[in-house]
């Protein structure tokens, strides 16, 4: 860019993050709906918790196969932390939102190429790498907004039924989900630049995240194959222990962020090389 200013001092257009702003503005409505929707779901779960007798939880736990209660983190189901961890964080945050962001990212590039919108975007005086980075970074809006919005709502709802939850633990559970959701989105992004058809990229993203989650849940019991868990991003984010006693591994988040960066580099290389 510096080169241009030198060669043409009258040039005033120096776009900065315009694509990021535009893409975020396009995501505002969906983000609001999703945040409100999840907030209502949390309200339902919290209300449901307030109705249950403590002895009922033990029965629920007994009736579940051990693999299932492990998969959904239900050991501490009798406390509000454990209940939220099992009903909201393990299921919604880990699985549903992981799939949602992988799916959304899988559409980022593939949809634009399929609809020929990419032709116009690449006629802009903007590098492919920057376009890709800004489009991906726009996903931070829903990721952050969901965590802040639903996190605050959850805290308020828990207090409203006369229970207490450590606000630091709750905030931490949300904060640590961000690297995890970014990895899911980055997996989708790689598929988005790799596959020609948007529908294929999106379906592959859903399938892959589900498969990785399944691998971690199913292999957890088998010692010999425990290493396979390591390839699943779900292995590096465990919301229930964070909620219960605030325990977490900072290294896990570091691994997730590194994986996200590596996947972004891969998608940049693929996008740079491909014909549109």
């Amino acid at each position, binding site marked *: 860019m510096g080169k*241009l200013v030198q060669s043409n001092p009258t040039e005033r257009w120096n*776009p900065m993050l315009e694509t990021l702003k535009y893409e975020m503005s396009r995501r505002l409505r969906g983000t609001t709906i999703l945040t409100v929707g999840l907030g209502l779901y949390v309200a339902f779960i919290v209300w449901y918790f307030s109705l249950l007798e403590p002895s009922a939880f033990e029965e629920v736990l007994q009736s579940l196969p051990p693999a299932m209660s492990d998969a959904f983190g239900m050991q501490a189901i009798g406390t509000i932390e454990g209940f939220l961890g099992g009903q909201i964080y393990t299921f919604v945050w880990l699985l549903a939102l992981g799939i949602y962001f992988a799916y959304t990212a899988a559409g980022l590039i593939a949809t634009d190429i399929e*609809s020929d919108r990419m032709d*116009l975007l690449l006629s802009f*005086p903007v590098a492919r790498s920057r376009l890709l980075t800004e489009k991906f970074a726009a996903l931070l809006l829903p990721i952050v907004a969901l965590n802040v919005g639903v996190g605050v709502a959850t805290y308020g709802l828990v207090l409203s039924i006369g229970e207490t939850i450590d606000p630091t633990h709750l905030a931490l559970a949300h904060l640590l989900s961000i690297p995890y959701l970014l990895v899911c989105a980055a997996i989708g992004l790689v598929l988005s630049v790799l596959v020609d058809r948007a529908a294929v990229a999106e379906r592959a993203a859903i399938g892959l995240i589900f498969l990785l989650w399944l691998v971690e849940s199913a292999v957890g019991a088998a010692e010999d194959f425990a290493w396979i868990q390591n390839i699943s991003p779900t292995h590096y984010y465990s919301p229930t222990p964070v909620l219960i006693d605030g325990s977490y591994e900072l290294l896990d988040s570091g691994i997730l962020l590194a994986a996200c960066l590596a996947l972004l580099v891969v998608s940049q290389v693929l996008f740079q090389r491909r014909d549109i």
Partner: protein
Amino acid sequence: MPTIEVNDLTKDYGSVRAVDSLSFTVESGEVFGFLGPNGAGKTTTIRSLLGLLKPTAGTATVLGADVHDEDALIDAKRRIGYLPAHLGFDEEATGTDVLDYHESVKGGSRRDELLEIFTPPVERPIREYSTGNRRMLGIVQAFMHDPELVIMDEPTSGLDPLKQEEFNEFVRSERERGKTLFFSSHVLSEVRRVCDRVGILRGGELVGLEDVDTLLQQGGKRVQIRTTDEASGDFAELDGVIDMQTFADGIQFIYTGEYNTLLGELATHDVREIEISEPPLEDIFMHYYGKAGAVESDREVESDA
């Protein structure tokens, strides 16, 4: 320095060679028509010029920037407008949203002026747009930052005849302002109205590069007539009659000779119906480059879609 310079450009898709060793230049300030039937490689060439496709061999420069050099091409793109053949917009966004975004990235000093000529309903979401409205929005975004060079792929497809005429008028005024315009078309009549020079592409190869006047002279007219008598023999003997075809209810041929001679001959027959029209592009090829070429020009190249 030419505005566009293409040197031995080749794009191979494995099974199909979409563009084969193409070379031509477009000078500053001219309106250059890139003519060819569907599948000739026009879109592939245009997309290579914009860096969307990487050429298999050869190169091209646009406003001095090599298409292989992303940084140089990005700088050049500030001074380039592009109107693709297929316009993809955010369906949920309004025209205003899209133009705001485009303006923020590349500038929009002429936006209001253009919206007086081309009138898409900018306050409505794009999913409600007709083909013509999409096209007009595309034209506005292509010219709004007052670029030096505008590259257009089939710019008038989908426009109603009135808007097409306004567009042609606009193209002529842009040429007077010193802009360079490069556009592809498969419609000769469109090209002849506005272009200075025409490159003809067939099967990925450049088969002609002509002043538009020369092309039209040699292109001739298509004559279809229905007479009460047997006329095909008489007309076939006229100078400049080629590709005579006889149908059950009349004859058709391409006429490149003197009009008076044709009219004289017509007067000796009992003509029931007549149509003299611009020949389709395929027929120009037939005249211009021989029958074999015309057949080949019908070949579809999938990747050009």
